[in-house]
C-alpha cells in the first residue's frame, strides 16, 4: 500500500524536470547591455563588431562580450551599469549616424538554451528601473473629429449633387442641416443614406425651416472609439520604437487607457515630449483671390480659412486640404540642397500622391502652403482644481509656388531648426494620433533603486524561507525534509510558469510568492498533523499516511480555493502592482496544491510505501 503507480511517479517527475529546465535561465546573472540596431540603409555585419569594439577600446571601457544577434542586432554586454552608460556615450559619439543604441538587461545564456527559446523571468520596472506611463485617450474628441470629417464630406456631397442647403453645422455630438424646403431635405437624406450607414437621421421643422439632425449610431460610435484607441496604440508604438528603447511594452488597459513601459529608460521629459506630440502637416492651396485684410476684419470667404505664418503675417488658405499627415508614408529630415535650411523629405501613399499630382497639375504657378498643426496642452487652476485645456496651434511654416507638378516624393522647408525638422519627421513617420492623449500616471524608477529592491526582496525571501525550512526539518525530521523539497519545487514551478507565460516579476510579486510558500507549508503541516493524530488514535503507520493525506485534502482544497477567489478578484480589478501580486499568487496556489499534495505524497511513498513500519517518523 501507499504506492503510486509508475505512470504517476513518472508524470510528477517529468513535471518537476520540465519546471527545472524552464526555471534554469534565471540562475544566470543579467548583465547591463546595449542593443544596437542599424539606421536606414545600413546593415550590421561582422565589420560592425570590430568597429564598435574599437570605439569602446578607444574610450578604454571594458566589454564583456559583443555578439551578433538575429534580426540585424548587435548585443554588447558590460560588467557594470556604469560601464554600460559610458559605453553608450562612446558609441553615440562616434557611430551615432549609422546605429541606434538602446539600454537593456541581458542574461548570458548558453547557446542551447537560447536555441530552445528559454528565457529568464521578466523583471518589473520596480526591479530593474525604467519608466511606466499610463495614458488616457480622449475618445470624445475622437468622436468630434469623426463628426467634423463627416461634415466636410457632406458639404462636398451636397455641392456635387447640387442640393441647396441653408446651414450645415456641428452642434455638440450631432450634425444639424437646415433646408428651405422638404424636397431638398429628402434628397439630402437619400444621398447621405446611400453613402453611409453610420448616421441616424431625425427630421423636424422650425417655422419655415426644414431641419435634419444627424447622429452617429451607437455601433459607429463604438467603432470610432475602438479604432481611435488601436490607432493611438500603433502610433505610440512607432514613436517609442523610434526612440530606440529595448523591449518597450505598450498595451491597452480597459476602455480608454494605454500603458507604456520602458525598461531602462530614464528621461521622462523626452519621452513625454515624443509621446504627447500631436504634430502633423497639412498641405493646402493659398486663396489668392480673397482679401486678407477683409478676412482679418472678420469677413472670411466661405471656402477659405484664415491662418497665420510663423512671423505673425496673416494668410488665406483654401479650406480643402490637399494632403494630410496620415497620407504620409515616410519622412526623413535633412538640409535643402540649395538654401541649406532644415528640410523634411516626405513620401506620400497612393491616394495622397494622386491628389497631390492632380492638384499641382491644375495649379502650376500658384502658391501652396504647408500648415504645421500641434496640440499643446496647458494646465490652469480653475476654482482650485487643475483643468487641462488642449489648444490646437496651426501655423503656416512655408509658402512656395508650385513650379511643376509633383507626386509622391517632395520636400518641405520652413522649419525653425534641424531639431524641429528631426522631430517632425519622426512624428510624421510614426503617424498621427487619432485622438488627443493625456498622461495620467507616470512612474520613473532609478536603476539603483531597482537593484536595491531586488537585493532586499531576495534577502527577505531567502531569510524567511530559510527560517521555515530549518523549522520544518527540525520539527518533522524526514517528513519535514520532504516538505522542504516540495517547497523548493514550488518555488521552481512558480519561476517556470512566470517565464512560460512571459509574466513580469515585480516587488509585490515577490511578496505574493512568499505568501504562497506559507500556504504550501500550511498544507504539509495539515497533512503531517493529521498523520500524528491518526497514529495517536491507534492506526497503523501505513494507514496513518493514507489517512493523513485523505483527510487533509478537503481542508487544503478549501483553504486554497478561498484564497484563489480573492486572488482572482484582485487580478480582474487590480492594475499594475496589484495585478503582479495576484498573478504570482494564482500561479503559486496552483503549484502549491500540486507540490504539497502530489510531490510530498510521491516522495513519502517512495521512502516508506510498501515497507513494514513500526513507527512513523513524523
Amino acid at each position, binding site marked *: 500500500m501507499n504506492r503510486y503507480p509508475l505512470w504517476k511517479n513518472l508524470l510528477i517527475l517529468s513535471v518537476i524536470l520540465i519546471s527545472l529546465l524552464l526555471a534554469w535561465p534565471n540562475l544566470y546573472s543579467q548583465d547591463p547591455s546595449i542593443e544596437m540596431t542599424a539606421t536606414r540603409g545600413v546593415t550590421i555585419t561582422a565589420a560592425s563588431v570590430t568597429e564598435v569594439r574599437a570605439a569602446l577600446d578607444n574610450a578604454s571601457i571594458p566589454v564583456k562580450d559583443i555578439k551578433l544577434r538575429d534580426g540585424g542586432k548587435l548585443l554588447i554586454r558590460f560588467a557594470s551599469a556604469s560601464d554600460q552608460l559610458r559605453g553608450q556615450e562612446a558609441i553615440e559619439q562616434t557611430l551615432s549616424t549609422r546605429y541606434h543604441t538602446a539600454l537593456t538587461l541581458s542574461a548570458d545564456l548558453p547557446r542551447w538554451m537560447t536555441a530552445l527559446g528559454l528565457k529568464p523571468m521578466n523583471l518589473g520596472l520596480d526591479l530593474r528601473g525604467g519608466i511606466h506611463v499610463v495614458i488616457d485617450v480622449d475618445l470624445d474628441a475622437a468622436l468630434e473629429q469623426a463628426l467634423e470629417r463627416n461634415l466636410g464630406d457632406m458639404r462636398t456631397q451636397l455641392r456635387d449633387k447640387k442640393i441647396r442647403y441653408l446651414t450645415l453645422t456641428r452642434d455638440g455630438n450631432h450634425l444639424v442641416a437646415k433646408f428651405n424646403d422638404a424636397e431638398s431635405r429628402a434628397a439630402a437624406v437619400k444621398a447621405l443614406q446611400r453613402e453611409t450607414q453610420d448616421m441616424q437621421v431625425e427630421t423636424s421643422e422650425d417655422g419655415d425651416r426644414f431641419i435634419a439632425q444627424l447622429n452617429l449610431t451607437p455601433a459607429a460610435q463604438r467603432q470610432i472609439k475602438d479604432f481611435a484607441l488601436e490607432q493611438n496604440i500603433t502610433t505610440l508604438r512607432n514613436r517609442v520604437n523610434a526612440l530606440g528603447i529595448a523591449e518597450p511594452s505598450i498595451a491597452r488597459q480597459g476602455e480608454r487607457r494605454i500603458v507604456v513601459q520602458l525598461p531602462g529608460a530614464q528621461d521622462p521629459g523626452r519621452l513625454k515630449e515624443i509621446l504627447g506630440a500631436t504634430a502633423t502637416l497639412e498641405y493646402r492651396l493659398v486663396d489668392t483671390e480673397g482679401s486678407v485684410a477683409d478676412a482679418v476684419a472678420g469677413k472670411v470667404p466661405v471656402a477659405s480659412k484664415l491662418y497665420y505664418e510663423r512671423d505673425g503675417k496673416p494668410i488665406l488658405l483654401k479650406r480643402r486640404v490637399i494632403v494630410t499627415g496620415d497620407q504620409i508614408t515616410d519622412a526623413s529630415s535633412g538640409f535643402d540642397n540649395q538654401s541649406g535650411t532644415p528640410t523634411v523629405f516626405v513620401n506620400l501613399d497612393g491616394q495622397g500622391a494622386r491628389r497631390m499630382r492632380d492638384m499641382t497639375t491644375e495649379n502650376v504657378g500658384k502658391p501652396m502652403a504647408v500648415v504645421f498643426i500641434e496640440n499643446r496642452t496647458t494646465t490652469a487652476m480653475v476654482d482650485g482644481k487643475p483643468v487641462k485645456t488642449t489648444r490646437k496651434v496651426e501655423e503656416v511654416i512655408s509658402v512656395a509656388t508650385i513650379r511643376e507638378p509633383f507626386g509622391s516624393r517632395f520636400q518641405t522647408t520652413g522649419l525653425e531648426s534641424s531639431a524641429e525638422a528631426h522631430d517632425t519627421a519622426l512624428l510624421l513617420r510614426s503617424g498621427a494620433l487619432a485622438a488627443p492623449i493625456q498622461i495620467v500616471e*507616470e512612474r520613473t524608477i532609478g536603476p539603483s533603486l531597482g537593484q536595491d529592491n531586488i537585493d532586499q526582496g531576495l534577502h527577505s525571501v531567502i531569510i524567511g524561507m530559510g527560517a521555515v525550512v530549518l523549522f520544518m526539518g527540525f520539527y518533522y525530521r524526514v517528513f519535514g525534509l520532504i516538505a522542504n523539497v516540495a517547497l523548493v519545487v514550488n518555488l521552481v514551478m512558480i519561476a517556470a510558469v512566470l517565464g512560460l507565460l512571459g509574466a513580469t516579476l515585480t516587488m509585490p510579486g515577490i511578496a505574493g510568492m512568499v505568501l504562497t510558500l506559507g500556504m504550501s507549508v500550511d498544507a504539509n503541516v495539515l497533512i503531517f498533523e493529521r498523520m500524528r493524530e491518526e497514529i495517536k488514535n491507534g492506526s497503523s503507520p501505513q494507514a496513518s499516511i493514507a489517512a493523513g493525506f485523505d483527510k487533509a485534502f478537503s481542508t487544503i482544497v478549501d483553504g486554497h480555493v478561498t484564497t484563489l477567489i480573492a486572488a482572482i478578484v484582485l487580478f480582474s480589478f487590480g492594475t499594475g502592482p496589484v495585478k503582479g501580486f495576484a498573478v504570482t499568487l494564482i500561479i503559486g496556489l496552483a503549484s502549491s496544491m500540486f507540490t504539497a499534495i502530489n510531490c510530498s505524497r510521491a516522495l513519502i511513498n517512495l521512502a516508506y510505501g510498501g515497507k513494514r513500519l513500526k513507527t512513523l517518523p513524523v
Partner: protein
Amino acid sequence: MRAIKLPQFNFLSQRRKAMAFSAVLIVTSLLSILIQGLNLGLDFTGGTVIEVNYKTAVDLAEVRKALSIAGFENVMAQQFGTPRDVLLRIPPNGEANDRELSKQVMNALNTAAPNQVELRRVEFVGPQVGKELADQSGLSVLFSLIGILIYVALRFEWRFSVGAVIATMHDATIVVGAFSLFQIDFDLTVLAAVLTVIGYSLNDTVVVFDRIRENFRKVRRGTVIEIMDQSVNETMTRTIITAGTVFLVVVTLYFFGGPTLHGFSLALIIGVVFGTYSTIYVASASVVALGVSRADLLRPSKETVTDGRP
C-alpha cells in the same frame, strides 16, 4: 512521534469576553476611520512623489529649506528607510502635471547640496486615476467577500458562511483601523496586503470549520460548544505552526524587505495575529450565536465520501 502535548482549553466559554474585546476594537477602528480617515498614499490621492538618495545623512530641515527657497512651499519631506533617503510628496495641483516638476525639484536640491543627490524614483498619479483606484479597491473587496460567501455556503452551510465573512470583515476592519489610528501611509501595496489578510483569515477559518464539520458527523456525544472546542483544540498545533511560520515570514519581510514593503508587511503582521484570533472567537462564536445545530451538517453530501475512508 514527538507531538507537543497541548493543554485542552474551553475556548468558546470565553466567547462573550472576546466579543466585547472585538467590539471595542471594531468600534475604535470604525471611529478612527470615520473621524481621522486614512492617510492615503499617492496611489489613491494623486500627486507626485520623488524619492532621492543623499551620499551622506541629510537633515530634513535643510531639504525643506532648499525647496522653499526654490518656491516649493507645499512639498512634504520625510525620511524613507535610512537617514540618507528622503521622500518628497507634492499634492496634486496644476503645477504637478508639469513635465519639468521633478527636474525643478532636483535642481533645487542640487543647488543646496551639489553632487550629493541621486534621483531614485519619480511617481506621478493623476487625481482621476487615484479616485478610480479607490472605487475599484472598494469593489474588489466587496466582490471577493461575495465570492467567498458563496463558496463557503456551498461547501458548508449558510451559518458558517456568515461566520466566515463576519470574521474576515472583522480582520480587514482592524487592519485598516490600525492604519487609520496610527496614520500610517495607506497605499496600493497595503491594499494588496488587506486582501491577502482576507485570504489568510479565511484559510484559517476554513481549516477549523472543516474539523467542526467532521466532528459534527463523527462525534455522537457532546453539545455543539463542546464539539467546537474539541475541534479548535485538535487543530491547535497546526494553527500554532502555520501562524508561527507565516508570522516568521512576514516579520522577515518587515525587517529585510526594505521601506517599500514596510506597509505591506505591517498589515500582514496585524492580519495574521487577528486572523488567527478571529477564527476561534469571531467565526466560531458567530456560528454558535447564529444557532447552529448538529443536524445542519448531517445532510449527506460529497464530503462524507472522503471522510468515510480509513
